[in-house]
């Protein structure tokens, strides 16, 4: 009963090829372009590029669970959450000599989790539309960070330079990204993964099948918060300190990255890997334009154009895939 007639090639490709492949191909192209523009890129420059890209990569990954959870799921506050975490580290913990690695890491994760729990409560229990709820928390977290830390500061404990080191075969920050990916991979082996996709793609079907839609979505916001906490930790290390104004600038880029990575903004399709690939792609485009001495205005316009192209292509891809 399913398509027995010869299906058009494009449709077959769209059905068989995983959602993140187009973004991956684009990354390969950008790598070639970058390598042709910069001689040092292949011989180690890429490690530094990855270090600078890592906060964005982690924030795009953080964005993924809520986007996947559907129902207009989105977290505008991931940037300010990461910013708040870095402010808590640099302006609360370090001045009090509470800079032991485990403590800083635990506090970063907990701060992120707390922010995520606030969003989760507003969206799933108070039932405010995600874009409004997280816009409100965006403003609150950003304001709170500025309140705690008026001017940028730059004293970090020695151990935090581990994150930015590129002395090894691979840059250390890659291990952080892979670590987050590994935890997620384990999670996708549990029932949570199918609960999340079911809720994200058809919440009525999920609800009537007996899935606890509220709990699944609540957890998605919580996970997003925790990952934003990890991103905040890395951001602190990359900045070499804390600056309350930096975090918020990441939010829109993270959302753009998620769209670039092939996730459906309507929910239910995609994963963390695609989000990370999308972020790398976005950063490579930015990096390439900087190499070719484009102005910051041109850079912004390029972001916009790339985003529109990505979303249109995403939609076309999806229609091909779903055509009967």
């Amino acid at each position, binding site marked *: *009963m399913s398509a027995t007639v010869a299906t058009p090639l494009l449709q077959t490709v769209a059905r068989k090829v995983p959602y993140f492949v187009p973004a991956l191909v684009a990354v390969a192209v950008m790598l070639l372009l970058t390598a042709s523009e910069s001689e040092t890129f292949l011989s180690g420059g890429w490690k530094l590029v990855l270090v600078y890209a890592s906060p964005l990569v982690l924030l795009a990954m953080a964005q993924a669970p809520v986007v996947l959870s559907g129902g207009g799921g989105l977290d505008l506050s991931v940037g300010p959450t990461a910013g708040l975490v870095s402010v808590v580290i640099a302006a609360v913990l370090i001045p009090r000599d509470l800079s032991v690695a485990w403590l800083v890491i635990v506090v970063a994760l907990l701060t992120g989790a707390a922010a995520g729990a606030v969003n989760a409560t507003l969206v799933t229990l108070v039932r405010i539309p995600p874009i409004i709820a997280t816009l409100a928390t965006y403003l609150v977290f950003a304001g709170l960070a500025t309140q705690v830390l008026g001017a940028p500061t730059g004293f970090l404990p020695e151990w935090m330079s581990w994150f930015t080191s590129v002395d090894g075969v691979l840059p250390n920050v890659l291990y952080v990204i892979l670590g987050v990916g590994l935890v997620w991979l384990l999670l996708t082996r549990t*029932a949570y993964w*199918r609960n999340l*996709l079911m809720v994200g*793609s058809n919440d009525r079907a999920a609800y*009537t*099948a007996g899935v606890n839609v509220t709990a699944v979505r609540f957890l998605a916001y919580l996970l997003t918060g925790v990952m934003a906490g990890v991103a905040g930790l890395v951001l602190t290390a990359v900045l070499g300190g804390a600056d309350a104004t930096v975090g918020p600038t990441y939010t829109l880029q993270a959302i753009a990255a998620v769209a670039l990575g092939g996730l459906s903004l309507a929910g239910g399709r995609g994963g963390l890997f695609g989000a990370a690939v999308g972020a790398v792609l976005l950063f490579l485009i930015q990096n390439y334009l900087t190499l070719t001495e484009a102005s910051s205005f041109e850079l912004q316009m390029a972001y916009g154009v790339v985003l529109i192209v990505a979303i249109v292509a995403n939609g076309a891809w999806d229609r091909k895939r779903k055509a009967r």
Partner: protein
Amino acid sequence: MSTPPLEPAVVELAGITHRYGPTVALSDCRLSIAPGEVHGLVGENGSGKSTVVKLLSGIMRPTEGEVRVGGKAVDLRSPAAAQRHEIVTVFQETLVSDECSGLDNVFAGTDGIFRRARSGRAEREAAERVVASLGASPAILQSSPHHLSLAERQVLTLTRALVRPWKLLILDEATSALDLSTRDRLFAVLADHRREGRSVLFVSHRMDELEILIDRATVQRSGRTVGTVGKDEATPARLLSMMSGRSDAGEHHVRAGARSRQAADVVLRGVDLSLVAQAPAFDLDVRRGEILGIGGLDGQGGSHLVEVLAGVRPTASGRVEVDRDGSWTRVTGYRQAFRSGIAYVPGKRQEEGLFPSMTVGDNLSMATLPRHARAGLFRSSSVLTRVREEMTRLGVVPHDPSYPITGLSGGNAQKVLVGRWLAAEPDVLILNDPLRGVDLGTKRDFYALLRELTEAGTTVVMLSTEIEELLTCCDRVAVCQAERVFDVLEGEDLTYDAVLAAMFGRHVSDEQSSDEQSSDHDTHRKVTL
């Protein structure tokens, strides 16, 4: 009238009342399902049967009364809770996710948030058994369901129900998505389950299916339980008469003032029309100056039909044509239909019709503003004069163009909505269930208004879910069933019972003969239960 069950009930509704705001959807409902029986639940639109299904499947909780499972009062606060009490439901809409595999669709909801209840292998084996018993290919479990047919998708939701432990299976018009062979396989499977003491609550508008399958049937009318009858009594004629509340099933009810129209004078027609993919094609003529009613149970194509006639919705196949000065013009879209003299008044007036932040006058003049413009600028005095005339004609209360539209009663708001399109002086006025939730007095005014319009030469096509309304208001009634026009009734044949029977896919003449020879006319294969 009611047959007491022999054993204690598996599931029982005891004096259930359910209200949505001021509307009483279900009033003192009593329903008792015995172990091992297939219990039919029938009634027309608004009879409360879908409320019963929602209460039993945990989608809603009753305002008053008790749901009892195995004699004990239970709180079915969510679909998950209903499933814990071993009540599973398959709905008419095929509720599957396109992003998960068929297997995940089947077992989603059986797990905890993280913990999986079964291994992948156990899941596959259990699901494959059920899928095979329904005569479908196990391949539907592997891929995601994008490209599956409607029937295959419904097999997935049936499998979802049947792999769970269950005592009561609710089939809420679930068979309408199935093809005949799958449906018969399902009935055979249910027969086996029945022997093991499991029960089925079977909601269907198909009298033939009810006849084959049920042991007893409960009839709902206007939110009330009319009664429960045993298999011998549950003939289509008896059920239809219980639904309609008339003791005499043969009663003819000719509407006063019905005028028959020349069949030749057709103003709008559907040729080889098919409303949705794979639905049977039919022809429909709308005669000049008549009020043609469109009837049918919710979700049986009535709403699709008016949308197709108005050009709002594309046809699956076939065409709609309108008479333009003697030649047939094909209706290709909404704006083109409007230019060809067809005005469409959408159903849900809050969402699709009114501009809630604007005044009565603004709402009324919305469609015809360009006519009051000179060099692209509106002359507000001209608009206002026209609006006042129109409000007088329609009898809108209060008679104040600057009144906010949200301050009007439902009936008056509907008049404004109709008036907006009347101002464009259409040849054909198509109304999508205009009087849902409007009080009786306003309804009468509205019928008179429609009658006046037709006398002035306008043709009216009106969808209504209420049979009484169709009888009171229309010259002819086209009844939709299974996404097609099942029957067009007029003159002496236009009776309450004929419309009701057609809604359930029957002709009144069938019922009379079926009383004598009970099941000979049934063309479908019977399954012995």
